[in-house]
């Protein structure tokens, strides 16, 4: 199963909310994937087996997988485009 990783500074609020939102979107679109929220310090270690990275903080390096703007999911600005990218990456 494909995996989506969401990371923010602390991993307790913003990334958790975005992760729940991404889960809900995927479930509505009947796409099966695992979504996990982590803190930014654990990202390098955990991103290895992931297919999509939803970044809340500005990514400091490229991980070689599609990277989405997580803030769009919170503010709604540009969210549709990010959802499209997400679906394309998980298909």
């Amino acid at each position, binding site marked *: *199963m494909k995996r989506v990783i969401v990371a*923010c*500074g*602390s*991993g*307790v*609020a*913003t990334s*958790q*909310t975005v992760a*729940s*939102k991404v889960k*809900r979107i995927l*479930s509505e679109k*009947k796409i*099966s994937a695992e979504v*996990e929220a982590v*803190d930014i310090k654990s990202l390098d270690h*955990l991103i*290895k*087996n992931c297919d999509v990275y939803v970044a*809340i*903080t500005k990514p400091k390096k490229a991980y070689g997988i599609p990277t989405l703007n997580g*803030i769009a999911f*919170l*503010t*709604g*600005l540009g969210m549709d485009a990010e959802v499209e990218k997400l679906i394309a990456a998980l298909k």
Partner: protein
Amino acid sequence: MIILDREITNLILVQKHLSVEEIANHLSTEKNKVLERIHLISERLPHESIEVVNGEVKISEKCVDELYASLVGNLSSNSNEYEVDLRKNLIELELIVHSNHHTLQTLSDLFYVSKNTVFSDMKYLKEELRNLNFHVTYSRKDGYQINGSEYLIRNHLVQLINELLKTAYGRSCLIDRFNINKSSISMFKQKLECIEDEIMIRLTDEQLGNLPFILSILLQRMQNFPKPWNFKVEKYDIRNTLEFPIIKKQFSEFSFLKDVDLLYLSLHILSSNRIESALEFADSEEINSSVNQFIALLKEKLAIDFVKETDFKSKIMLHIQPAIFRNILGFRVNNPLTERFINEHYYVFKAVAHAAKKSFGTILEHDFSDEEIVYLSMIVLGWMYQTEEDNSAYYKAVVLCFNGTSVSKLLLENLKDMFPDIEFIGAFSFRQFEQMNLEPDFIFTTVPMKSRITTIIVPPFLEPDSRKQLRKVVSKLLSQDPKRKAKGIVYAIKDLIPEDKRELAELALKSFFDKEEEKRPIYRERISLTEENISVIDSSVSWDNCVEAAFNPIISRGNIGSDYINKCKSIFYSNYQQMLIGPKVYLPHATVTKESADLQITIFKQAVTNPEGDPFQLMVALVPEKSNAHVPLLLKLNDVFLERGRIEAIVACKSRKDILNLLERR
């Protein structure tokens, strides 16, 4: 150890920063029960204890060692006896490594025991060392000294270090006593990795973990006792090997090392267990035919055929090469499972000992020790258990072990036998696993590790009791987790569901079980909003003061202190652009330590302006909860804030009651 204690210990080891409540929720039990068990587990540890501060579990590194030892069952039940052995080993090490002219007084000061105790330790020590052809002398000028052949003293030193590294917290003692720190460990590790790359071998994780300690302490002996010495290995010309110059190069920065010292260091690296090797052994033909004979004899003696015999042979070859090296050089190998293995699998042990003597007798200086035979027997027994693969399993798992060879192989076959529902992908070292990108459902590991995959700690040797407990732990895990339950059910009725719909069926079942899970108490304690959680500030507030203003009501409720606010301010003012929960709605927060969850929605009637000059009127001050109970509320608020016109409507409300209605009306 009862199963609940085992599960609690397991959880504490795998996730070191848990609260008592989280443990209780995880194990579906009461907080008080967990506290009581933690207290009892703690009492059984010889020195350390598990601390519970404000509901948070805290353990020191030494405590980790002791907890792990209690889990795998190598913690001596008699802590005094354990302490005496530990001190005796440390005294020996001290005399061998440091040239400090020790007297009874200095040793008594060093180990915080009376002179009488040191005297009695020295008495036993002298006797033990005499049996190993060493003698302990004492003079006013030089204090206590251990004398004997330098080669044997160094071998003994390595043996002592290996023994200490296997005990509950020998590692911490070595770090304290011998000036070993993280950077020296990582420096030696890097050197070993360079050597691995250049001579194309891969050492086991255990060896890579222990060798930095061994090399670091050996170097101290070499520097502190620079007297000339020599040794000759009759059957092997190490100087002319491909490996020697590569190893020598890595130690060139230690100018005090003489050629003979470098030769000695090389021997240790070459006789270390490895899990991969691209090089052939010097006498490969001789070894090759000996291994063939060994396998033929085993087949005859045990009346069996080995599945995948070529793989079996490679495994034996890989193990036998450094084992022969150790034998020729007279190095002893540690195998803590020797006695237990011989008791439980006596006939296999006898058959392997017999076959090894007949097959390798001409190459070896003397017979293999029982420890080496047990290592070989574990590979053999592991292979005997192995059967041709069948595909009836629907969960995947791996076995990870520091000693990536015989121990994990036997463990793997035992686990396969115990859990036919689980497909075991293989047994690996931690380093191998990291590079493999596998995605198992479970990791069975012999030492604690952090992973988002469910890890189960198992003792390296499964005795009937530990098997029973392990079965219970796994069956509990399988029945509690919605994802695994769904996977199991879909597998059971897979013939009734079209193949392309199975994943969806699994997902639907998972959501169904997720909902069931949500009914459990932990989810019922979600934060719900009242008017108290809403503040309306009419006066003008500056950017610098807005966070404090937003958190004020939470402080009044006593749910946080000024430390938390300061932490939030420092995080928020440098990361505010990412700390949002809606368009222009900021969410200052920090990770929790001991606070209770709380949330405050603040409406600034006079817009606050951020450093970019953008005005905003809403802020949600959050004190999150470790179990993420705040997340559903945040998701709900985000949905509200994203509705067109809703933020404007909230700001325009005349009362807190109206605001609450707007937030709840969805």
